[in-house]
């Protein structure tokens, strides 16, 4: 079970997190139809480094982008996602 450094809570067990999706599967709000279809249905599935969206669902609830190696499971970095300043 991975140890994931949550940007808000520090190192926490993977069981506290939910994997959401790979970052390249996100459909931007202004996506053209072809772009949207490509992101949803014909995306890559790289062996090795990928960027993924996770959420600390059973912790603080915050979202984060995790860059990690899907072969060695090593986490390169974690960045918070969301408004720069919380309202």
């Amino acid at each position, binding site marked *: *079970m*991975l*140890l994931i450094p949550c940007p808000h809570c520090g190192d926490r*067990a*993977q069981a506290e997190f*939910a994997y*959401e999706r790979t970052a390249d599967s*996100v*459909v*931007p*709000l202004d*996506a*053209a*139809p072809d*772009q*949207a*279809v490509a*992101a*949803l249905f014909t995306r890559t599935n790289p062996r090795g480094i990928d960027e993924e*969206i996770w*959420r600390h*669902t059973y912790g603080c*609830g*915050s*979202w984060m982008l995790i860059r990690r190696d899907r072969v*060695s*499971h090593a986490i390169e970095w974690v960045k918070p*996602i*969301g*408004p*720069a300043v919380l*309202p």
Partner: protein
Amino acid sequence: MIRFTFDGRALTAKPGQTLAAALLDHGIKLVGRSFKYHRPRGILSAGVEEPNALVTVGTGGRAEPNTRATDLYVYDGMVATSQNRWPSLSSDLGSALQLVAKALPAGFYYKTFFGPPKLWLFYEKFIRRAAGLGPAPVEADPDRYAQRAAFCDVLVVGAGPAGLIAARDAARAGKRVILVEQDAELAPSLLRDPQEIEGQPGSVWAASVAAELRAKGGRVLTRTSASGLWDDNFICLSEKLVEPGQVPQGAFTQRYWHVRADEVVLATGTLERPLTFANNDRPGVMLSQAVRTYVSRFGVVPGQRVVVATSNDDAYLTATALRQAGAEVVAVLDSRPSPAGQDSGFAVLNCAAPVSAAGGKRGVTGVTALIDGAERSFACDLIAMSGGFTPVVHLHMQAGGKLDWDDAAQAFVPGATRQNVRTVGSAAAPAPAETFGALGPAKQAFVDFQNDVTVADLDLAWREGYRSVEHLKRYTTLGMATDQGKTSNMAALDRIARREGMEVPQAGLTTFRPPYTPVSMGALVGLATGEHAQPTRRPALYDLHAAKHPIWLNAGYWKRPRAYPVGSETLAEAGLREARSVRQAVGLCDVSTLAKFEVQGPDAVQFLERVCQTTVGKLAVGRGRYTFMAREDGLVFDDGTVWRLEDNRYLLTSSTGGASRMATWLSYVRNYLCADLKVSVVCVQEHYAAIAVAGPQSSAVMAELTGAEAPRHMSVSETGIAGVPVLLMAASFSGERAFEVHFDARHAEAVWRAIEDKVLQAGGAPYGIEAMELLRIEKGHLVVGPDIDGRLTADELGLGKMVNKAGGWIGAATLHRPDFADSMRKQLVGIEAVNGGSIPEGAMLVRRVGEQAEGHVTASGLRIMEGGSIALAHLMGGHMRHGEELYAHSPTRKQTVKVRVGSPHFYDPSGERYRD
């Protein structure tokens, strides 16, 4: 003296003996029957690797099948039973299968699957009876299993000398240490081979190290197996607080640990390899170190006339121990050339190896050996064999480690690691040994004892083209039994390598998967059983409903009243009565479980217009509307209502079942897609209780309760009921004039009682989910799950006219996919039974029974006042097929009903009843 029974026979054991030791002590050699061929089997090992001596221990719900007799300490009152035999262990009918062994070669299952299906159905009946292990108990397990989390700096697996020293070094360096040992005793190898360490007898030294560890705050856990090692040094430990089948002395029978360690030290030792020769599975053929363990640790001499067969020096210690215990060592067969063993003082024969054992279920009676090319036979009652030592690298491999090949030991040893894991002791440096392959008739030479895989099976698979180890494993079931091939994998690799003409390292290895030894399901589940298997969510009004003794519905985790039966009413009768009271007068229903979100801020409208497929911007303050939401793929996944409470403040409701999904979705959209918007989205699902009041009398009831005129349809007012401030939203899910009252959940009971009083005075009644379903189906309102199933577009659901033409909502781009233009995609329709009968929910829609399904029934109801079966359905090209007649056919319920396709709005399609 400890008393126990084996197959009903009363026996005794000495304290500290395993079941295997106690049975050998009583001269019992036959312990089980093999998995496939029912061959008589005895005891091979003295540890967790045992493939043969599997028993069921305990009775009733406490019975634990497939327990290794070598890993089970006898306790007073223990009931052990042999397995896979009938009518008894010594006269087993299934052993007749040995005569038809030809019928079950490698890949038997696969070959049968590819044959005619009827053949498999025929075989299955007797295979399921004949091949197998102990039956699982049918009663519930009466015991409780604890779970516990822990953290440490260093976790040491294995309390042999190497593990104890590693743990002591860490503790002396100020580290927090956990030391685990699967045996009941520390340093079991020192009980087998007593020696002095640091001037103390081995076991005394081990105890003093453990005492020092504990004194320094460390934890020493015996009878604890490190079952798996995962990413970032997450380790699971399975601790037996009592033996399998034993009544627990405390609250728990086992404890399952989740440990996170900075460093893991593996001092897991080695497993001895069997030799491969004909009848090497007979009772009385044992591993050399195991024989020594029984002699030196348990005081049991398993044979009086012993042949030792070895490829290494270690077995000479066994010969010595046997001689000291008074047994006769007939010969030592050493595969290595002279002078190996020649100075030992035993009758050593070099370049010698066993070819075939003689004897049957009562044990071996002799062995034939090949000595420098010539055969020679020896009479004996025990064969102690050693084919070298395999390091226990399971945890190292589970943690992503690599292996190196140690040529002197003919074994894989731990290599590079990915995590902070290191291996010490004999697991890192096994004793030298040689290998020489299998001898004797291949059909009786067993490689995998537990799954009955012979050398002949491996050869057959190889001839049939299974060259990769992974394929060969699956084809022959090698290494796939409960022992996971602990004693068999290396012998199999050796055979494959020889056939391929390559070295063992080139043959490859199969994956090492957790658990290292079997873990009780109960330990994994912990206390999450029965009522605690999943959370129970009780709405704010739960106690009030419970007092009415309703029929409950488990809606996700929620407990919701399905109906409130009066007298002897059935569910259907109560539901219909409640629905009629709504049609004719008024009813009230707890809808607190609805998902509710407050959306506030200057950009609240922009946010909602992205989430909702309908317009939101045109809503005036005090107004609301029906809405629905699409995923990025353009398909509708939820629906609800949106209300403008103030200029920049909205309340969004959505379905109960989709509540947590919607909460996640809104959070994702807000944080990832719309991070620039000035908006706050807060889930208020449990903050607000909600009560629906529906029926022609509802506006009169609300006016009386609030002292003001009720808001018109799809308007909202802030008012009060029973002194509690409420949001009064005029919205309907029933086809009648109706309201939803939302308010602070802490006042739920007061508001409910006030409304219920007036409803009863008006001739109405409370209603549950059953009536709600009948009402909404007749009106053609959709429910998330069956009707809105995430596979249809708004158009296909008949909601196309409400879609925001300006776009901008999530999913708009994808909706232009050409697939969606296909008019034969499924669309929502209503169907009505033509010649009576009840339309079965989930039935398929067909033109004629036996033809391809063109749709399915999503929700089945009836005309509440008039009777007659109606339903909602998804039908291919359904919008253009109104008037067509089809059959609703349910093969599982054996029902077929003729139906006519039409509009899903059966009741008041123009909505006149929403107006007062």
